[in-house]
C-alpha cells in the first residue's frame, strides 16, 4: 500500500473490518486475560508443580507452532495487500498458504495431544490448564481456518468485500497473538 493511502486511511479514522467485530476481539482478549490471570495465580501458588509439568512439554514443537502461526499471519497480511491492490489471484494464493500453515499448526497440536494422552499423568492441575487453554485456542484456530478457506475462495471474485478480508485478518492476528502469550506462559515460564 502506498504511504499516501495509509496516511489517508489513518486521517479518516479507518477501522479495519467492521467496528462491531472489535467487540468480539476485545471481549475475547479480556477472557483470555482472565485465564492467564487464573493460571498465573496458581503458578505462583505451586511453582514446583508447574516446573514439573513443563518438563513434559516439547518446547521445539511449541516454537515450531509459534513460527508457523507468525508466518501464517504474514501471509494473511500479504493477502490483504493483494486484495487492496485488486489482485484477487495472488490474494487467493496468500490466503491458501495461510490456511495450509494453520492446518500444519493443528496437525502439530494433534501430535502433541496424542503423545500427552498416551504417556503423561493427565489428572494434574498443570495438564488441566494445558489442555483447557490450548484447547480453547485450538477452537479459535479451527474457526479461523474456516474463515481463511472462505477468503481463499472469494478472493478471485470481482469486487470482494474488503471489510470481510480485514475482519478475518484481524481475527487471525488475534489468534496469533494469543498463541504467542500461551507459548510463553505454558512452555517457557
Amino acid at each position, binding site marked *: 500500500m502506498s504511504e499516501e493511502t495509509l496516511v489517508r486511511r489513518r486521517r479518516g479514522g479507518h477501522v479495519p473490518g467492521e467496528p462491531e467485530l472489535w467487540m468480539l476481539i476485545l471481549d475475547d482478549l479480556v477472557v483470555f486475560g482472565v485465564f492467564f490471570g487464573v493460571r498465573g495465580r496458581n503458578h505462583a501458588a505451586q511453582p514446583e508443580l508447574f516446573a514439573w509439568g513443563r518438563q513434559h512439554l516439547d518446547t521445539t514443537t511449541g516454537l515450531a507452532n509459534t513460527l508457523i502461526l507468525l508466518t501464517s499471519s504474514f501471509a494473511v497480511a500479504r493477502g490483504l495487500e493483494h486484495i487492496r491492490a485488486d489482485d484477487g489471484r495472488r490474494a487467493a494464493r496468500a490466503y491458501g498458504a495461510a490456511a495450509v500453515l494453520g492446518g500444519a499448526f493443528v496437525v502439530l497440536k494433534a501430535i502433541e495431544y496424542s503423545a500427552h494422552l498416551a504417556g503423561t499423568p493427565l489428572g494434574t*492441575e498443570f495438564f488441566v490448564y494445558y489442555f483447557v487453554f490450548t484447547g480453547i485456542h485450538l477452537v479459535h484456530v479451527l474457526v479461523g481456518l474456516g474463515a481463511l478457506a472462505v477468503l481463499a475462495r472469494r478472493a478471485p471474485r470481482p469486487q470482494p468485500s474488503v471489510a470481510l478480508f480485514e475482519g478475518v485478518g484481524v481475527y487471525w492476528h488475534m489468534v496469533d497473538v494469543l498463541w504467542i502469550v500461551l507459548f510463553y506462559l505454558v512452555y517457557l515460564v
Partner: protein
Amino acid sequence: MTRSPHTTALLRVGAWSATVFPLVFGAGWLLLGHFFPPFSPADGPEEIARQFLDRRTPIMLGSVAIMVSTMVLAPAGALLVLIVRKAESGVGILTVILGLTVATTMVLTFYTGFSLALATFRAGRGPALIQYASDSAFLQFIGGIPMFWLLWIVVACASLVTRSRENPVIPRWFGYVSLWAAILYIPELLVFFLKQGPFAWDGLVGFWIPAVIFIVYFPLATAVSLGIIRRHFEDTR
C-alpha cells in the same frame, strides 16, 4: 404484510418474556434455593444432604419456580424463531434448528427444577440419593450446553451471514455478542470432569463467567428484540 396491533402486542410479550424468564428462574435458583454461588461439587453426600434438608421447603418452592420458568421461555423462543425466519427470508434451516433448540432448552430448564424437586421430595432419603439428584440438577443446568448452545450460533449466523449490512434484521453487534457468548460457554463442558478449581461448577470459568452472561444476555435480548419488532414487524404498508 399488515399486522394487527394485537399481534404486535403479543410479539412484545415475547420480547419481555426474555427478561421475565431469568427473574422467575432466578427466584427459584437464587432467592429460594440459595444456589448462587452453588456449593462445591467436591462436597460429600452428608454435607449436600444437610443443605437440602435444612432448606427443604424453600428449595421445593424454588424447584417449582424453575419448572414454571420453562413456560416463560416459550414466547421468547417463539419470537426468536419469527425473527430468524425474517432474517432468513422464510423458513430455512436456521429457523428449524432454532425451533428444535428452543424446545430442548425448555426441556433442560424443566428437568433442572425437576431434579431439585427429586432431591427434596422425600425427607427420609439417604444422603447418597440426595447427592445423586442434586448432581443431576447441577450437571444439567451448568453442563447442559449441547441443549441450548446452538441458540447463539443460529442468532450469530442469522445476524452476520444471512443479510446484507444494510438494514439487517438482527443488529450485527448482537450477532458478535452471541458468538462470543457461545465461545465462552464451551469450557462449561469441563464441569463433567472436574470438581475443584476454576472449571468446576462453582469456579470462575465454570460458574461466574456463564452466570454473568446469563444475567446480561436475556435483558439485552429483550431490548434488541423490541427494536427489531419496531423496525421489521410493524410495517403497515
